[in-house]
Protein backbone atom coordinates (compact mmCIF):
# COMPACT_ATOMS: atom_id res chain seq x y z
CA UNK A 1 0.00 0.00 0.00
CA UNK A 2 1.43 3.41 -0.86
CA UNK A 3 2.10 5.53 2.19
CA UNK A 4 0.61 8.48 0.43
CA UNK A 5 -2.86 7.02 0.65
CA UNK A 6 -3.40 7.31 4.41
CA UNK A 7 -1.47 10.55 4.49
CA UNK A 8 -3.67 12.19 1.90
CA UNK A 9 -6.74 10.87 3.66
CA UNK A 10 -5.46 12.46 6.83
CA UNK A 11 -4.91 15.76 5.06
CA UNK A 12 -8.41 15.67 3.65
CA UNK A 13 -9.97 14.80 6.96
CA UNK A 14 -7.97 17.49 8.72
CA UNK A 15 -9.03 20.13 6.26
CA UNK A 16 -12.64 19.04 6.44
CA UNK A 17 -12.30 19.43 10.16
CA UNK A 18 -10.82 22.88 9.71
CA UNK A 19 -13.68 23.82 7.46
CA UNK A 20 -16.14 22.61 10.02
CA UNK A 21 -14.48 24.55 12.79
CA UNK A 22 -14.50 27.74 10.81
CA UNK A 23 -17.90 27.40 9.20
CA UNK A 24 -20.24 25.76 11.66
CA UNK A 25 -22.11 27.67 14.28
CA UNK A 26 -23.24 25.15 16.77
CA UNK A 27 -20.62 24.67 19.42
CA UNK A 28 -21.24 20.95 19.51
CA UNK A 29 -20.62 20.60 15.81
CA UNK A 30 -17.44 22.48 16.35
CA UNK A 31 -16.42 19.82 18.83
CA UNK A 32 -17.32 17.18 16.27
CA UNK A 33 -15.10 18.87 13.72
CA UNK A 34 -12.26 18.81 16.20
CA UNK A 35 -12.75 15.08 16.49
CA UNK A 36 -12.29 14.81 12.74
CA UNK A 37 -9.05 16.71 12.99
CA UNK A 38 -7.78 14.52 15.80
CA UNK A 39 -8.67 11.47 13.78
CA UNK A 40 -6.57 12.80 10.94
CA UNK A 41 -3.73 13.04 13.40
CA UNK A 42 -4.24 9.46 14.47
CA UNK A 43 -4.35 8.30 10.91
CA UNK A 44 -1.02 9.99 10.30
CA UNK A 45 0.47 8.44 13.38
CA UNK A 46 -0.70 4.95 12.53
CA UNK A 47 0.46 5.26 8.95
CA UNK A 48 3.89 6.48 9.92
CA UNK A 49 4.08 3.80 12.57
CA UNK A 50 3.37 1.20 9.95
CA UNK A 51 5.85 2.78 7.58
CA UNK A 52 8.66 2.90 10.12
CA UNK A 53 8.74 -0.58 11.48
CA UNK A 54 10.80 0.08 14.57
CA UNK A 55 9.03 -2.32 16.87
CA UNK A 56 8.43 0.31 19.46
CA UNK A 57 4.85 1.08 18.41
CA UNK A 58 5.48 4.71 19.19
CA UNK A 59 2.88 5.99 16.76
CA UNK A 60 0.21 3.64 18.01
CA UNK A 61 0.93 4.59 21.60
CA UNK A 62 0.62 8.22 20.83
CA UNK A 63 -2.58 7.52 18.94
CA UNK A 64 -4.03 5.89 22.02
CA UNK A 65 -2.97 8.90 24.06
CA UNK A 66 -4.61 11.20 21.54
CA UNK A 67 -7.86 9.30 21.74
CA UNK A 68 -7.77 9.64 25.51
CA UNK A 69 -6.95 13.28 25.18
CA UNK A 70 -9.88 13.72 22.87
CA UNK A 71 -12.13 12.09 25.38
CA UNK A 72 -10.96 14.40 28.15
CA UNK A 73 -11.33 17.41 25.90
CA UNK A 74 -14.79 16.57 24.74
CA UNK A 75 -15.89 15.87 28.27
CA UNK A 76 -14.81 19.24 29.52
CA UNK A 77 -15.89 20.91 26.30
CA UNK A 78 -19.40 19.59 26.58
CA UNK A 79 -19.53 20.78 30.17
CA UNK A 80 -18.57 24.24 29.06
CA UNK A 81 -21.09 24.15 26.23
CA UNK A 82 -23.83 23.12 28.59
CA UNK A 83 -22.83 25.92 30.92
CA UNK A 84 -23.01 28.30 28.00
CA UNK A 85 -26.44 26.97 27.21
CA UNK A 86 -27.54 27.57 30.75
CA UNK A 87 -26.36 31.11 30.56
CA UNK A 88 -27.24 32.11 27.05
CA UNK A 89 -30.00 29.73 26.10
CA UNK A 90 -28.22 28.69 22.95
CA UNK A 91 -25.01 26.99 21.94
CA UNK A 92 -24.21 29.23 19.03
CA UNK A 93 -20.50 29.97 19.14
CA UNK A 94 -20.99 32.67 16.57
CA UNK A 95 -23.44 34.56 18.71
CA UNK A 96 -21.62 34.54 22.01
CA UNK A 97 -20.27 38.04 21.90
CA UNK A 98 -20.91 39.38 25.34
CA UNK A 99 -17.26 39.88 26.02
CA UNK A 100 -16.49 41.94 22.97
CA UNK A 101 -15.37 45.36 23.98
CA UNK A 102 -18.30 47.68 24.33
CA UNK A 103 -18.02 50.88 22.39
CA UNK A 104 -17.52 53.55 24.93
CA UNK A 105 -17.38 57.25 24.75
CA UNK A 106 -13.76 58.31 24.88
CA UNK A 107 -13.42 59.71 28.33
CA UNK A 108 -12.67 63.29 27.63
CA UNK A 109 -9.49 64.52 29.18
CA UNK A 110 -11.14 67.81 29.71
CA UNK A 111 -13.11 66.51 32.62
CA UNK A 112 -10.22 67.12 34.87
CA UNK A 113 -10.13 70.72 33.96
CA UNK A 114 -12.74 71.42 36.54
CA UNK A 115 -10.86 69.38 39.06
CA UNK A 116 -7.54 70.94 38.36
CA UNK A 117 -8.56 74.49 38.86
Amino acid sequence: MPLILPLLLAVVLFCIGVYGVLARRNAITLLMSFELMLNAVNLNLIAFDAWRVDGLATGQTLAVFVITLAAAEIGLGLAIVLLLFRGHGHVDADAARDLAEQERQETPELQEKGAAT
Partner: protein
Amino acid sequence: MTLTWTDWQAIAVPLVLAVGAVAVLLIDSFWRSASVQLRHTVVTLLTVALILFGLVFVWAQRDDFKPAFCRPAVEGPAECSLVFEPLTAGLWAVLLIGALGVVGLSAYRLLSADVPVGEYHFLLLSALVGATVLAGARDLATVVIGLEVVSLPSFAMVALRRDRRGSEGALKAFLVSVLSTAVMLFGISYLYGVTGSLYLSTIANRLSGLDPELRRVAFAAGLFVIVGFGFKIAAVPFHGWLPDTYVGAPVEVTAFLAVVSKSAGVAGLLVLVTSGVAPSGSELRTVVAILAALTMTVGNLAALRQQEAVRLLAWSSIGQVGFLLAPLAVGDAQAVVGYLAAYVVVTVGAFGAVAVVQRHRPGGLLTDYRGMVRSEPGLAGALIFFLVVLAGLPPGLAGLFTKFAAFQAVIDAHLGWLAIVMAINVMIGLAVYLRWVAELFRLPAEDPFSVDIESPAVAMISLCAATAAVLSILPSTLFSLAI
Protein backbone atom coordinates in the same frame (compact mmCIF):
# COMPACT_ATOMS: atom_id res chain seq x y z
CA MET B 1 10.48 -0.30 33.25
CA THR B 2 11.56 0.31 36.76
CA LEU B 3 11.60 3.76 38.17
CA THR B 4 14.95 4.74 39.60
CA TRP B 5 15.54 7.06 42.52
CA THR B 6 16.59 9.73 40.07
CA ASP B 7 13.27 9.45 38.30
CA TRP B 8 11.43 9.93 41.54
CA GLN B 9 13.53 12.90 42.43
CA ALA B 10 13.01 14.47 39.09
CA ILE B 11 9.25 14.19 39.21
CA ALA B 12 8.96 14.78 42.93
CA VAL B 13 7.52 18.24 42.52
CA PRO B 14 4.81 17.38 40.00
CA LEU B 15 4.05 14.25 41.91
CA VAL B 16 3.63 16.03 45.20
CA LEU B 17 1.53 18.66 43.55
CA ALA B 18 -0.71 16.03 41.98
CA VAL B 19 -1.14 14.14 45.21
CA GLY B 20 -1.72 17.40 47.01
CA ALA B 21 -4.33 18.35 44.47
CA VAL B 22 -6.31 15.25 45.21
CA ALA B 23 -5.85 15.84 48.91
CA VAL B 24 -7.18 19.35 48.59
CA LEU B 25 -10.18 18.10 46.71
CA LEU B 26 -10.89 15.43 49.26
CA ILE B 27 -10.53 17.75 52.21
CA ASP B 28 -12.91 20.19 50.69
CA SER B 29 -15.43 17.55 49.73
CA PHE B 30 -15.50 15.44 52.82
CA TRP B 31 -14.89 17.94 55.58
CA ARG B 32 -18.36 19.40 55.36
CA SER B 33 -18.59 20.11 59.02
CA ALA B 34 -16.15 22.95 58.81
CA SER B 35 -17.30 26.41 57.79
CA VAL B 36 -16.52 27.69 54.33
CA GLN B 37 -14.19 30.18 55.83
CA LEU B 38 -12.18 27.59 57.62
CA ARG B 39 -12.10 25.23 54.70
CA HIS B 40 -10.93 28.04 52.47
CA THR B 41 -8.15 28.88 54.86
CA VAL B 42 -7.07 25.29 55.25
CA VAL B 43 -7.15 24.67 51.54
CA THR B 44 -5.22 27.81 50.82
CA LEU B 45 -2.62 26.99 53.42
CA LEU B 46 -2.27 23.47 52.12
CA THR B 47 -1.84 24.71 48.58
CA VAL B 48 0.69 27.25 49.70
CA ALA B 49 2.55 24.57 51.60
CA LEU B 50 2.65 22.33 48.54
CA ILE B 51 3.96 25.10 46.37
CA LEU B 52 6.48 26.15 48.95
CA PHE B 53 7.67 22.58 49.13
CA GLY B 54 8.15 22.69 45.42
CA LEU B 55 10.09 25.91 45.69
CA VAL B 56 12.31 24.58 48.43
CA PHE B 57 12.91 21.44 46.46
CA VAL B 58 13.79 23.38 43.35
CA TRP B 59 16.08 25.61 45.37
CA ALA B 60 17.84 22.65 46.91
CA GLN B 61 18.31 20.89 43.60
CA ARG B 62 18.89 23.90 41.43
CA ASP B 63 22.34 22.92 40.25
CA ASP B 64 21.60 19.27 39.56
CA PHE B 65 21.21 17.58 36.27
CA LYS B 66 18.76 14.69 36.46
CA PRO B 67 17.51 12.95 33.38
CA ALA B 68 14.46 10.83 34.14
CA PHE B 69 12.37 8.21 32.35
CA CYS B 70 15.20 7.39 30.05
CA ARG B 71 15.76 4.52 27.75
CA PRO B 72 18.87 3.68 25.83
CA ALA B 73 18.57 5.01 22.37
CA VAL B 74 19.22 3.22 19.12
CA GLU B 75 21.83 5.78 18.35
CA GLY B 76 23.30 8.61 20.37
CA PRO B 77 22.72 9.34 24.05
CA ALA B 78 19.87 8.00 26.06
CA GLU B 79 16.41 9.33 25.27
CA CYS B 80 14.61 10.82 28.20
CA SER B 81 11.07 11.99 28.75
CA LEU B 82 11.91 14.48 31.43
CA VAL B 83 15.06 16.26 32.42
CA PHE B 84 15.60 18.26 35.53
CA GLU B 85 18.37 20.70 34.87
CA PRO B 86 19.08 24.30 35.86
CA LEU B 87 16.86 25.58 33.10
CA THR B 88 14.05 23.42 34.41
CA ALA B 89 14.73 24.63 37.90
CA GLY B 90 14.46 28.23 36.74
CA LEU B 91 11.25 27.62 34.87
CA TRP B 92 9.75 25.71 37.76
CA ALA B 93 10.70 28.46 40.13
CA VAL B 94 8.95 30.98 37.93
CA LEU B 95 5.88 28.80 37.58
CA LEU B 96 5.69 28.04 41.27
CA ILE B 97 6.18 31.65 42.27
CA GLY B 98 3.47 32.67 39.86
CA ALA B 99 1.14 30.03 41.23
CA LEU B 100 1.93 31.10 44.76
CA GLY B 101 1.01 34.62 43.82
CA VAL B 102 -2.26 33.49 42.30
CA VAL B 103 -3.10 31.46 45.38
CA GLY B 104 -2.39 34.50 47.45
CA LEU B 105 -4.64 36.58 45.25
CA SER B 106 -7.37 34.01 45.50
CA ALA B 107 -7.18 34.08 49.26
CA TYR B 108 -9.11 37.25 49.63
CA ARG B 109 -11.68 37.39 46.98
CA LEU B 110 -12.76 33.91 46.14
CA LEU B 111 -15.54 33.54 48.65
CA SER B 112 -17.61 36.35 47.39
CA ALA B 113 -17.24 35.25 43.83
CA ASP B 114 -19.24 32.06 44.15
CA VAL B 115 -16.40 29.78 43.22
CA PRO B 116 -16.11 26.31 44.75
CA VAL B 117 -12.94 26.52 46.75
CA GLY B 118 -11.83 22.92 46.67
CA GLU B 119 -12.32 22.47 42.97
CA TYR B 120 -10.64 25.75 42.29
CA HIS B 121 -7.49 24.79 44.13
CA PHE B 122 -7.58 21.30 42.74
CA LEU B 123 -7.71 22.62 39.20
CA LEU B 124 -5.02 25.14 39.93
CA LEU B 125 -2.71 22.48 41.29
CA SER B 126 -3.48 20.15 38.39
CA ALA B 127 -2.62 22.83 35.93
CA LEU B 128 0.55 23.44 37.86
CA VAL B 129 1.41 19.77 37.55
CA GLY B 130 1.02 20.06 33.82
CA ALA B 131 3.08 23.22 33.74
CA THR B 132 5.96 21.73 35.67
CA VAL B 133 5.93 18.58 33.58
CA LEU B 134 5.82 20.64 30.42
CA ALA B 135 8.81 22.70 31.51
CA GLY B 136 10.85 19.57 32.01
CA ALA B 137 9.49 17.50 29.17
CA ARG B 138 11.87 16.23 26.56
CA ASP B 139 9.54 14.20 24.38
CA LEU B 140 6.67 15.37 22.29
CA ALA B 141 4.07 13.13 23.87
CA THR B 142 4.82 14.52 27.28
CA VAL B 143 4.91 18.00 25.87
CA VAL B 144 1.51 17.81 24.30
CA ILE B 145 -0.09 16.08 27.24
CA GLY B 146 1.55 18.42 29.70
CA LEU B 147 0.23 21.31 27.70
CA GLU B 148 -3.25 19.89 27.83
CA VAL B 149 -2.98 19.41 31.56
CA VAL B 150 -2.19 23.09 31.84
CA SER B 151 -4.96 24.14 29.51
CA LEU B 152 -8.03 22.13 30.35
CA PRO B 153 -8.07 22.89 34.09
CA SER B 154 -7.55 26.56 33.42
CA PHE B 155 -10.59 26.67 31.13
CA ALA B 156 -12.57 24.99 33.80
CA MET B 157 -11.32 27.65 36.18
CA VAL B 158 -12.40 30.40 33.81
CA ALA B 159 -15.95 29.08 33.89
CA LEU B 160 -15.88 28.10 37.52
CA ARG B 161 -18.03 31.04 38.53
CA ARG B 162 -20.62 29.37 36.31
CA ASP B 163 -22.05 32.58 34.98
CA ARG B 164 -22.68 33.97 31.54
CA ARG B 165 -19.40 35.78 31.10
CA GLY B 166 -17.30 33.01 32.51
CA SER B 167 -18.81 30.36 30.29
CA GLU B 168 -18.38 32.46 27.19
CA GLY B 169 -14.80 33.20 28.05
CA ALA B 170 -14.12 29.56 28.75
CA LEU B 171 -15.74 28.49 25.50
CA LYS B 172 -13.60 30.85 23.47
CA ALA B 173 -10.43 29.79 25.16
CA PHE B 174 -11.44 26.17 24.91
CA LEU B 175 -12.26 26.21 21.22
CA VAL B 176 -9.07 27.97 20.33
CA SER B 177 -7.11 25.67 22.55
CA VAL B 178 -8.60 22.55 21.05
CA LEU B 179 -7.91 23.77 17.57
CA SER B 180 -4.37 24.55 18.58
CA THR B 181 -3.95 21.12 20.11
CA ALA B 182 -5.20 19.54 16.93
CA VAL B 183 -2.86 21.63 14.81
CA MET B 184 0.01 20.86 17.10
CA LEU B 185 -0.70 17.16 17.14
CA PHE B 186 -0.92 17.20 13.39
CA GLY B 187 2.50 18.76 13.33
CA ILE B 188 3.81 16.24 15.81
CA SER B 189 2.50 13.41 13.69
CA TYR B 190 4.51 14.68 10.75
CA LEU B 191 7.57 15.23 12.89
CA TYR B 192 7.22 11.67 13.99
CA GLY B 193 6.81 10.57 10.44
CA VAL B 194 9.84 12.44 9.28
CA THR B 195 12.17 11.52 12.11
CA GLY B 196 10.62 8.39 13.52
CA SER B 197 10.97 9.54 17.08
CA LEU B 198 9.19 11.63 19.65
CA TYR B 199 12.24 12.39 21.74
CA LEU B 200 13.43 15.93 21.21
CA SER B 201 17.10 15.08 21.27
CA THR B 202 16.69 12.37 18.67
CA ILE B 203 14.49 14.55 16.52
CA ALA B 204 17.12 17.28 16.68
CA ASN B 205 19.80 14.82 15.64
CA ARG B 206 17.86 13.43 12.74
CA LEU B 207 16.50 16.74 11.49
CA SER B 208 19.93 17.85 10.42
CA GLY B 209 20.39 14.99 8.05
CA LEU B 210 17.14 15.08 6.16
CA ASP B 211 16.41 15.14 2.45
CA PRO B 212 15.20 18.50 1.13
CA GLU B 213 11.66 17.13 0.52
CA LEU B 214 11.41 15.76 3.99
CA ARG B 215 12.90 18.93 5.37
CA ARG B 216 10.02 20.88 3.91
CA VAL B 217 7.57 18.63 5.68
CA ALA B 218 9.61 18.89 8.83
CA PHE B 219 9.45 22.63 8.55
CA ALA B 220 5.68 22.57 8.17
CA ALA B 221 5.47 20.21 11.10
CA GLY B 222 7.63 22.41 13.26
CA LEU B 223 5.56 25.37 12.21
CA PHE B 224 2.40 23.60 13.32
CA VAL B 225 3.93 22.77 16.66
CA ILE B 226 5.04 26.34 17.19
CA VAL B 227 1.64 27.58 16.11
CA GLY B 228 0.10 25.31 18.66
CA PHE B 229 2.11 27.04 21.34
CA GLY B 230 1.33 30.31 19.66
CA PHE B 231 -2.33 29.76 20.48
CA LYS B 232 -1.48 28.99 24.06
CA ILE B 233 0.63 32.03 24.66
CA ALA B 234 -1.63 34.15 22.46
CA ALA B 235 0.90 35.23 19.92
CA VAL B 236 -0.60 37.31 17.15
CA PRO B 237 -2.46 36.21 15.01
CA PHE B 238 -3.57 33.51 17.44
CA HIS B 239 -4.43 35.96 20.17
CA GLY B 240 -8.09 36.63 19.58
CA TRP B 241 -9.41 34.63 22.49
CA LEU B 242 -7.23 36.27 25.08
CA PRO B 243 -8.83 39.63 25.76
CA ASP B 244 -12.32 38.17 25.86
CA THR B 245 -11.33 35.36 28.13
CA TYR B 246 -9.38 37.63 30.42
CA VAL B 247 -12.34 39.90 30.76
CA GLY B 248 -14.78 37.06 31.21
CA ALA B 249 -12.86 35.25 33.90
CA PRO B 250 -12.65 36.21 37.55
CA VAL B 251 -9.64 38.41 38.12
CA GLU B 252 -7.73 35.69 39.98
CA VAL B 253 -8.22 33.27 37.14
CA THR B 254 -7.17 35.94 34.71
CA ALA B 255 -4.04 36.34 36.75
CA PHE B 256 -3.57 32.60 36.61
CA LEU B 257 -3.95 32.60 32.84
CA ALA B 258 -1.61 35.51 32.48
CA VAL B 259 0.98 34.10 34.80
CA VAL B 260 1.02 30.32 35.06
CA SER B 261 -0.66 29.31 31.86
CA LYS B 262 1.29 31.75 29.76
CA SER B 263 4.57 30.93 31.46
CA ALA B 264 3.94 27.25 30.85
CA GLY B 265 3.40 27.93 27.16
CA VAL B 266 6.57 29.96 26.98
CA ALA B 267 8.42 27.28 28.89
CA GLY B 268 7.24 24.60 26.47
CA LEU B 269 8.21 26.66 23.48
CA LEU B 270 11.56 27.40 25.06
CA VAL B 271 12.16 23.70 25.59
CA LEU B 272 11.28 23.02 21.96
CA VAL B 273 13.50 25.76 20.62
CA THR B 274 16.50 25.11 22.80
CA SER B 275 16.46 21.38 22.55
CA GLY B 276 16.86 21.38 18.86
CA VAL B 277 13.54 21.28 17.06
CA ALA B 278 14.30 24.78 15.86
CA PRO B 279 18.07 24.92 15.77
CA SER B 280 19.97 28.11 15.29
CA GLY B 281 19.61 29.34 11.75
CA SER B 282 16.48 27.41 10.98
CA GLU B 283 13.51 29.09 9.38
CA LEU B 284 11.44 28.23 12.39
CA ARG B 285 13.38 30.77 14.38
CA THR B 286 12.59 33.31 11.72
CA VAL B 287 8.95 32.39 12.16
CA VAL B 288 9.22 32.92 15.89
CA ALA B 289 10.94 36.23 15.30
CA ILE B 290 8.17 37.32 12.96
CA LEU B 291 5.62 36.21 15.51
CA ALA B 292 7.49 38.20 18.14
CA ALA B 293 7.48 41.36 16.07
CA LEU B 294 3.82 40.99 15.16
CA THR B 295 2.78 40.11 18.67
CA MET B 296 4.47 42.98 20.43
CA THR B 297 3.36 45.52 17.88
CA VAL B 298 -0.27 44.46 17.75
CA GLY B 299 -0.49 43.89 21.46
CA ASN B 300 0.92 47.24 22.39
CA LEU B 301 -0.96 49.14 19.74
CA ALA B 302 -4.25 47.60 20.69
CA ALA B 303 -3.58 48.32 24.33
CA LEU B 304 -3.01 51.94 23.49
CA ARG B 305 -6.62 53.03 23.62
CA GLN B 306 -8.13 50.54 26.03
CA GLN B 307 -10.29 51.94 28.74
CA GLU B 308 -10.69 48.95 30.98
CA ALA B 309 -7.95 47.93 33.29
CA VAL B 310 -8.16 44.20 32.70
CA ARG B 311 -8.48 44.55 28.97
CA LEU B 312 -5.49 46.83 28.95
CA LEU B 313 -3.52 44.29 30.93
CA ALA B 314 -4.72 41.60 28.56
CA TRP B 315 -3.47 43.39 25.48
CA SER B 316 -0.31 44.51 27.18
CA SER B 317 0.36 40.92 28.20
CA ILE B 318 0.19 40.08 24.51
CA GLY B 319 2.78 42.78 23.98
CA GLN B 320 4.91 41.31 26.74
CA VAL B 321 4.72 37.92 25.12
CA GLY B 322 6.08 39.52 22.01
CA PHE B 323 9.07 40.65 24.00
CA LEU B 324 9.42 37.17 25.43
CA LEU B 325 9.35 35.64 22.00
CA ALA B 326 12.20 37.82 20.82
CA PRO B 327 14.95 36.20 22.91
CA LEU B 328 13.14 32.94 22.45
CA ALA B 329 13.55 33.29 18.72
CA VAL B 330 17.28 33.28 19.22
CA GLY B 331 17.22 30.57 21.87
CA ASP B 332 18.51 32.64 24.75
CA ALA B 333 17.05 30.74 27.68
CA GLN B 334 18.59 32.98 30.26
CA ALA B 335 16.96 36.11 28.90
CA VAL B 336 13.62 34.33 28.52
CA VAL B 337 13.56 33.00 32.05
CA GLY B 338 14.70 36.30 33.49
CA TYR B 339 12.04 38.16 31.57
CA LEU B 340 9.45 35.64 32.57
CA ALA B 341 10.35 35.92 36.23
CA ALA B 342 10.07 39.68 36.30
CA TYR B 343 6.89 39.56 34.26
CA VAL B 344 5.30 37.00 36.55
CA VAL B 345 6.00 38.91 39.74
CA VAL B 346 4.71 42.23 38.55
CA THR B 347 1.76 40.78 36.69
CA VAL B 348 0.59 39.07 39.84
CA GLY B 349 1.03 42.33 41.66
CA ALA B 350 -0.82 44.34 39.04
CA PHE B 351 -3.71 41.89 38.99
CA GLY B 352 -3.73 41.98 42.75
CA ALA B 353 -4.16 45.72 42.70
CA VAL B 354 -6.80 45.45 40.00
CA ALA B 355 -8.61 42.84 42.03
CA VAL B 356 -8.78 45.17 44.98
CA VAL B 357 -10.21 48.00 42.94
CA GLN B 358 -12.47 45.81 40.83
CA ARG B 359 -14.04 44.34 43.88
CA HIS B 360 -15.40 47.71 44.83
CA ARG B 361 -15.77 49.19 41.39
CA PRO B 362 -16.84 46.36 39.13
CA GLY B 363 -16.76 48.54 36.05
CA GLY B 364 -13.04 48.16 35.90
CA LEU B 365 -12.46 51.35 33.95
CA LEU B 366 -9.17 53.16 34.01
CA THR B 367 -10.98 56.24 35.20
CA ASP B 368 -11.83 54.39 38.39
CA TYR B 369 -8.20 54.74 39.31
CA ARG B 370 -8.20 58.50 39.25
CA GLY B 371 -6.57 60.24 42.11
CA MET B 372 -5.52 57.07 43.84
CA VAL B 373 -2.10 58.51 44.52
CA ARG B 374 -3.77 60.73 47.05
CA SER B 375 -6.51 58.50 48.35
CA GLU B 376 -4.64 55.19 48.41
CA PRO B 377 -0.97 56.10 48.19
CA GLY B 378 0.33 52.67 49.08
CA LEU B 379 -1.74 50.75 46.58
CA ALA B 380 -1.22 53.36 43.90
CA GLY B 381 2.51 53.41 44.51
CA ALA B 382 2.71 49.66 44.19
CA LEU B 383 0.59 49.63 41.05
CA ILE B 384 2.70 52.36 39.50
CA PHE B 385 5.78 50.39 40.30
CA PHE B 386 4.37 47.27 38.67
CA LEU B 387 3.35 49.19 35.58
CA VAL B 388 6.70 50.84 35.34
CA VAL B 389 8.40 47.48 35.58
CA LEU B 390 6.17 46.25 32.78
CA ALA B 391 7.10 49.30 30.76
CA GLY B 392 10.74 48.69 31.52
CA LEU B 393 11.70 52.09 32.81
CA PRO B 394 13.40 53.09 36.03
CA PRO B 395 12.56 52.66 38.86
CA GLY B 396 11.38 49.36 37.48
CA LEU B 397 14.87 48.14 36.82
CA ALA B 398 13.76 44.54 36.85
CA GLY B 399 11.72 45.23 33.74
CA LEU B 400 14.41 47.39 32.26
CA PHE B 401 17.13 44.80 32.59
CA THR B 402 15.03 41.94 31.36
CA LYS B 403 14.17 43.99 28.31
CA PHE B 404 17.83 44.80 28.08
CA ALA B 405 18.72 41.13 28.11
CA ALA B 406 16.16 40.53 25.39
CA PHE B 407 17.73 43.27 23.31
CA GLN B 408 21.14 41.85 23.93
CA ALA B 409 20.10 38.40 22.85
CA VAL B 410 18.53 39.74 19.68
CA ILE B 411 21.48 41.95 18.87
CA ASP B 412 23.92 39.14 19.47
CA ALA B 413 21.96 37.03 17.02
CA HIS B 414 22.24 39.75 14.36
CA LEU B 415 18.51 40.30 14.17
CA GLY B 416 18.74 44.02 13.69
CA TRP B 417 15.27 44.47 12.30
CA LEU B 418 13.70 42.78 15.28
CA ALA B 419 15.71 44.99 17.61
CA ILE B 420 14.40 48.09 15.89
CA VAL B 421 10.83 46.81 16.13
CA MET B 422 11.44 46.15 19.80
CA ALA B 423 12.77 49.63 20.32
CA ILE B 424 9.66 51.12 18.77
CA ASN B 425 7.54 48.87 20.91
CA VAL B 426 9.27 50.01 24.05
CA MET B 427 7.92 53.41 23.18
CA ILE B 428 4.39 52.22 22.41
CA GLY B 429 4.39 50.09 25.53
CA LEU B 430 5.42 53.04 27.61
CA ALA B 431 2.58 55.05 26.13
CA VAL B 432 0.20 52.29 27.17
CA TYR B 433 1.29 52.14 30.77
CA LEU B 434 1.72 55.85 31.18
CA ARG B 435 -1.94 56.39 30.37
CA TRP B 436 -2.78 54.36 33.38
CA VAL B 437 -0.16 55.98 35.56
CA ALA B 438 -1.46 59.36 34.51
CA GLU B 439 -4.94 58.41 35.68
CA LEU B 440 -3.54 57.47 39.05
CA PHE B 441 -1.96 60.87 39.41
CA ARG B 442 -4.86 62.84 38.05
CA LEU B 443 -7.07 64.71 40.41
CA PRO B 444 -10.39 62.89 40.50
CA ALA B 445 -13.57 64.50 39.33
CA GLU B 446 -15.64 63.05 42.13
CA ASP B 447 -14.84 60.68 44.95
CA PRO B 448 -11.57 58.86 44.48
CA PHE B 449 -11.18 55.20 45.19
CA SER B 450 -10.52 54.55 48.81
CA VAL B 451 -11.32 51.48 50.87
CA ASP B 452 -10.02 49.41 53.69
CA ILE B 453 -7.93 46.91 51.84
CA GLU B 454 -8.09 43.34 53.12
CA SER B 455 -4.94 42.32 54.88
CA PRO B 456 -4.22 39.31 52.60
CA ALA B 457 -4.29 41.71 49.71
CA VAL B 458 -1.97 44.09 51.47
CA ALA B 459 0.38 41.26 52.23
CA MET B 460 0.19 39.91 48.71
CA ILE B 461 0.76 43.20 46.95
CA SER B 462 3.50 44.23 49.33
CA LEU B 463 5.19 40.93 48.77
CA CYS B 464 5.07 41.37 45.02
CA ALA B 465 6.28 44.94 45.29
CA ALA B 466 9.08 43.93 47.60
CA THR B 467 10.13 41.12 45.31
CA ALA B 468 10.05 43.41 42.33
CA ALA B 469 12.06 45.98 44.26
CA VAL B 470 14.66 43.42 45.23
CA LEU B 471 14.84 42.21 41.66
CA SER B 472 15.26 45.81 40.57
CA ILE B 473 18.16 46.42 42.86
CA LEU B 474 19.78 43.06 42.23
CA PRO B 475 18.77 42.16 38.70
CA SER B 476 21.44 39.52 38.60
CA THR B 477 19.09 37.24 40.58
CA LEU B 478 16.82 37.22 37.57
CA PHE B 479 19.51 35.96 35.31
CA SER B 480 20.88 33.39 37.69
CA LEU B 481 17.59 31.50 37.43
CA ALA B 482 18.64 29.55 34.41
CA ILE B 483 22.29 29.04 33.97
